């Protein structure tokens, strides 16, 4: 479904991705792991063409994404649940979802999907999204991905900055979301990531240094720890 082939990406003059290749098959949850600053977020941004790669290719269902604009990538069914959630805090919960429904789709249908998956959003639908708790904002961000009629969700650090008991809720929300779509998941919380994922990639210094089946490793394995612990 998604084939990232040898992409190199820069922020200004700093070389962030030095030839990243990975693939995601339809229906899979793939975890992308690694320390802070190794290029996980940049990989997602490069797929979305928010940070277009200077070389290499990103193919989605056979179509080359490099050269397209971000909204075109989004229209093809690639959704983004970014780090820090980036919900529109001044808009209501419902407006946050509404803005994510593609042109031509039935808004009421799309909203009911999100509200069924995350009933708390239905209770708060008239509330300004900025007044939600961190966990609720994460559910809204995931809900936005759901109503976007996406086939592939790029999820970035969904458990970051949340209290442990909220993380469990978010893990449930992720599992619910993953049952609907394919997912490429960036997550520092190893047990959470391995629990959800079918396969994983490990990124270090802008390169993929390891990959494999999630079942074959555990969070304590030296194989993962040497790339992940600080």
């Amino acid at each position, binding site marked *: 479904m998604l084939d990232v082939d040898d992409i190199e990406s820069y922020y200004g003059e700093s070389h962030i991705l030095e030839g990243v290749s990975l693939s995601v098959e339809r229906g899979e949850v793939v975890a992308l792991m690694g320390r802070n600053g190794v290029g996980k977020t940049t990989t997602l941004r490069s797929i*979305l063409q*928010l940070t277009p790669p200077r070389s290499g290719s990103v193919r989605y269902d056979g179509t080359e994404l490099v050269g397209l*604009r*971000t*909204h075109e990538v*989004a*229209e093809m069914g690639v*959704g*983004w649940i*970014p780090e820090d959630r*980036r919900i*529109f*805090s*001044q*808009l209501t919960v419902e*407006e946050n979802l*509404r*803005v*994510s429904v*593609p042109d031509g789709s039935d808004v009421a249908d799309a909203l009911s999907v999100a509200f069924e998956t995350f009933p708390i959003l239905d209770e708060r639908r008239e509330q300004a999204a900025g007044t939600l708790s961190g966990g609720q904002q994460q559910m809204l961000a995931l809900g*936005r991905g759901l109503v*976007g009629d996406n086939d592939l969700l790029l999820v970035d650090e969904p458990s970051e900055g949340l209290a442990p008991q909220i993380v469990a809720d978010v893990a449930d929300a992720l599992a619910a979301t993953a049952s609907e779509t394919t997912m490429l998941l960036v997550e520092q919380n190893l047990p959470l990531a391995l629990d959800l994922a079918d396969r994983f990639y490990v990124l270090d210094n802008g390169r993929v240094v390891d990959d494999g089946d999630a079942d074959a490793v555990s969070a304590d394995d030296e194989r993962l720890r040497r790339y992940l612990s600080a």
Partner: protein
Amino acid sequence: MTTVLDAAMALLLQTGFVDGLIEFVQPDVLVEVVVRGLAKSAIYIMIAAGLTLIFGLLGVLNFAHGALTMIGAYLGGVVMVLTVGSGTGPWARLALFFVAMAVVFGLLAALGGSIEIALIRPLYDRAPIYQILLTFGVTLILEELVRIVVQFYGLQPIAEWQEALGTIPVFLDTSHSLGPISVRGLALFEILLGVLTVAAIWGFLTHTRYGLFIRAGSEDSEMAEALGIDVRRVFTVVFALGAGIAGIAGTLLMWDQVWGASVPLAADALLPAFVVVIIGGLGTFRGTVYAALLVGLVDATMTWWFVNAVEFSALPQMTIFLLLVLVLILKPQGLFGVAEVGGH
């Protein structure tokens, strides 16, 4: 200490402060001042609304906004002068005014959209100073072009265009009395247009899908793009809308003797527009509306005060700037501003 207070009291009495206060609170005076203030507020809202919409979404301080207002005033004047004859009745003149407004809105929106696509779009990734210099340059070019055209037709570019002023219907040009209160028709018309403009913009922003895109994009344009919104196109539409609203404001000012169509109108409109937008908080439409109400009412009060009660006629012109300084000291981000606005 008491001597200082005594001296101050004496000065107040001497300058007519107490007499002024007694006169000011008379109902007829108060109502007149409020109506004048609301008329000023309406004008401020109309010249500032486009500026604040553009800044809120694009993060661009459009220094050409005043020039667009000025061009709107001239174009509106052209439509009126060409269509209104001495025999045209007052209601026909009013109807033609709305035709002029629609024409000017269309032309200015097209001009604004073209400026955005051709000149501003290549500069979004640069520092704001590039956009400021660019739009400032656009102002100079537009002003010179208008000056050349106006002079070619034998008009004085510095003075208000009298022929355009003369197309105003008689019932807007005269004062109407209601008991002891006397109000100029144009002031009421300006208030009406201001209310309609605010209602139209507010309705568009909150009740249409495109308005939702604009509000989302104003908060986080990258996220909006990642949700499938063609933010570049939304930018162009908003710039065109902002320019169109500036044109509508100009059409209205063409009828107002205090303003009138003239080349210096560009600067005369830009300055209060910036003051209002900054007081309200850059980029918030709601803040701009409240700020325009505040500035208009304070302006009208001070004008009455320093003309009728205390002789100091230079002060009213400074009032809005004093208000600006006061707000910036007490609340630097503006009355309704958030710390960070703008799409970039």
